[in-house]
């Protein structure tokens, strides 16, 4: 069942069939420059050392990974043209594309992949390090075109470990034996992607140009990419209106601007291209702080927050109310979980049943420091919880303060959102496994949720090789977590991409604009 050999041409055909009819009928026109906004300006473009959004956006044109993932989350070939998973789920064999060259002319081989997985990312990438140290027994290169990953135990989500932000291929001949973080190539990145860094004017723009020796013949279509730096949100919207930039992606402008701009003529929009990440926004309730150790109190919190109001009013309709820990756009999500409709009376009953006197508690609520919509969200949660009788004080924090308080578990209530990376074992389990109650990261099990049944179900699902069994385990996990209200899940974030109609073939996969833009073209 899992033994699948995919040839590049079969998948290429599938991709060709899935593109929109408009662009399928048209012949791509080569040439032209594409203008985008990178917000905020990234510190570096080296994807192996920094996986923040801006770095991935611009760096994704320079670096590439073994695989990418479709909007349906199916793995697709990138630097690996085909792969094979053994029957026992322990051996992953990747065959690399032919004639791939680094930007400095050196050939890219299986040695680079082994170096990336065994040395570079194991040292520099916390998420890969965890996977590698838990599951990976060896990474070998039997010949220059083949890489073999041997696992010590089966890991059903392993195939989702090869996305750009998880496993970008790093040039061995440049980084081997050096201090990765101070290597001069970090400022002058060398990748295999369709575009190469030409110039980076700090505070103004990042200028990439076409890689003439790109491994896909005849590609990329575009000659140049500009990632412009525009610090003010209103100016970014104006830059798009005036045509200075051709694309706005989620987060570039505020929600009400998105609503206004989508209504303008000659503007295309889509929420696609985020399926791999599918961020879910949630309110973390520290289970070590009274009164949130009581399940009824947590359930009351779910009942008192009107998630439709949050999405429709505060987020300007951009998002989907969440009903549980798994984003609705991801595999294994189930609707078959306990529901918590907006109901203040029910919430008050639950508080009464819990025996808690809300007036006894003064609770700190830590907002997310990402702009006015997040401030309104904190104010809304405060006013709703005050209707139950709690005293809430909002803590104003900057990104550093937020991260520190979260990492130290020093919070009562806090907002957070995280990427799901295609599979619950990659992006969801980390928040609920009791083994992950570890200080030092804002993205672990920071609420200190402990439930042996949940631990076991996640472990069984991750190591199972039978998809039906995996789905059944994950459905059960969702039911337990939602009944327990391990967190108050608020909404699945949506990110609207806006672009001018002349830009064609823009969003092709589940990683959206982070995907190599080799097939993007501009209609003249």
């Amino acid at each position, binding site marked *: 069942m899992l033994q699948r050999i995919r040839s590049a041409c079969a998948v290429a055909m599938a991709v060709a069939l899935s593109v929109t009819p408009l662009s399928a009928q048209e012949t791509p026109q080569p040439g032209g420059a594409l203008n985008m906004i990178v917000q905020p300006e990234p510190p570096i473009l080296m994807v192996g050392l920094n996986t923040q959004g801006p770095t991935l956006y611009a760096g994704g044109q320079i670096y590439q990974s073994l695989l990418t993932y479709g909007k349906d989350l199916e793995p697709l070939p990138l630097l690996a043209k085909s792969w094979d998973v053994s029957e026992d789920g322990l051996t992953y064999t990747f065959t690399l594309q032919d004639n791939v060259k680094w930007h400095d002319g050196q050939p890219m081989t299986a040695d680079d992949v082994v170096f990336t997985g065994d040395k570079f990312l194991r040292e520099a990438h916390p998420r890969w390090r965890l996977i590698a140290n838990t599951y990976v027994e060896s990474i070998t290169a039997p010949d220059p075109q083949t890489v073999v990953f041997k696992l010590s135990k089966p890991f059903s989500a392993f195939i989702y470990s090869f996305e750009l932000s998880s496993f970008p291929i790093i040039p061995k001949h440049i980084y081997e034996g050096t201090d990765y973080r101070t290597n001069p190539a970090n400022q002058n990145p060398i990748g295999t992607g369709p575009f190469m860094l030409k110039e980076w004017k700090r505070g103004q723009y990042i200028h990439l140009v076409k890689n003439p020796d790109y491994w896909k013949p005849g590609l990329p279509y575009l000659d140049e990419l500009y990632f412009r730096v525009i610090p003010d949100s209103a100016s970014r919207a104006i830059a798009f209106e005036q045509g200075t930039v051709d694309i706005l992606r989620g987060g570039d402008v505020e929600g009400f601007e998105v609503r206004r701009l989508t209504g303008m003529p000659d503007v295309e929009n889509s929420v696609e291209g985020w399926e791999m990440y599918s961020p879910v926004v949630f309110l973390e309730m520290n289970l070590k702080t009274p009164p949130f150790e009581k399940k009824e109190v947590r359930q009351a919190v779910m009942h008192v927050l009107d998630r439709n109001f949050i999405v429709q009013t505060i987020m300007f309709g951009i998002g989907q109310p969440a009903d549980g820990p798994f984003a609705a756009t991801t595999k294994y999500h189930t609707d078959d979980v306990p529901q918590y409709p907006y109901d203040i009376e029910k919430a008050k009953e639950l508080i009464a049943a819990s025996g808690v006197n809300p007036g006894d508690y003064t609770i700190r609520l830590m907002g997310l420091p990402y702009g006015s919509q997040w401030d309104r969200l904190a104010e809304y949660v405060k006013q709703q919880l005050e209707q139950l009788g709690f005293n809430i004080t909002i*803590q104003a924090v900057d990104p550093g303060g937020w991260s520190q308080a979260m990492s130290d578990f020093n919070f009562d209530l806090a907002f957070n959102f995280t990427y799901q990376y295609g599979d619950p074992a990659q992006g969801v389990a980390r928040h609920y496994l009791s083994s992950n109650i570890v200080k030092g990261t804002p993205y672990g099990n920071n609420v200190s949720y402990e439930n042996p049944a949940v631990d076991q179900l996640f472990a069984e699902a991750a190591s199972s090789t039978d998809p039906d069994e995996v789905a059944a385990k994950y459905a059960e996990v969702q039911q337990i977590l939602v009944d327990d209200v391990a967190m108050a899940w608020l909404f699945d974030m949506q990110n609207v991409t806006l672009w001018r109609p002349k830009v064609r073939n823009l969003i092709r996969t589940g990683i959206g604009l982070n995907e190599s833009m080799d097939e993007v073209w501009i209609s003249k």
Partner: protein
Amino acid sequence: MSFTRRFAAHPGALIGLLLLAAVLFIAAFAGLLYPGDPWQSVGPPLLPPGGDPLYPLGTDLLGRDIAAGLAHGARVSLLIGVISTMAAVLVGVVLGAIAGFFGGWVDDLLMRFTEFFQTIPAFAMAVVLVAIFTPSITSITGAIAIVSWPPVARLVRAEFMSLKSREFVQAAVTLGQRPLRIMFSQILPNTMSPIIVTASLMVATAILTESSLSFLGLGDRNMMSWGYMIGAARTMLREAWWLSVFPGVAILLTVIAINLIGEGLNDAVNPHLRGRKD
């Protein structure tokens, strides 16, 4: 001519007094006029002014009543303005009096200390202080007091230096009065007029500073204030002007009122101007 008549002769001062009285009335009775929490949603979101007689000034993004926000915001603005000014005047008077009365190295030391504060731009320092001590009504009041006492100290010092060589002070010294008594019973009463005028204008500055801090997101997140209302709504100016215009007008009127009163006080208590209109 009495103080009251001199003050009343100033039409601007009377207008200012009326405006301030109105603001004080609203602040004092905010709880009765708009019972309940101004942070609670009461109506449909983003209702324009006049759209519903219940909410004459409209509602904001979360459906909160703008008029209720203004009334409760008046309390915060006036409270911070008055308390921070009182604290600043207290510190300024004590340091200025000691420096001016004793002179010599005490004066040098205190004035260098004052200059240290005066060399840092006041608003920048307030931002830093509030950021360090995390925004709360106490830290904001404290920060405004810390950045606004040096001019008072300078003023009081100058007054003390000129008054301490006057005959009535020397008489008190000859009578054997202790320095502290001389400072507070002989000299200080004679410096009250300029201090009162300065303090009245400082209240206006303090209200503006608080609004600016809130505008920048450094306000107390649990207190409704005018600066917060503008700061939260400024990105939506094109979509919902009423969210920022009404609190802006409130700040404008209050600050003008206090400035007019300050002018009137200055004219009324300044001995050099006394003969002018008599």
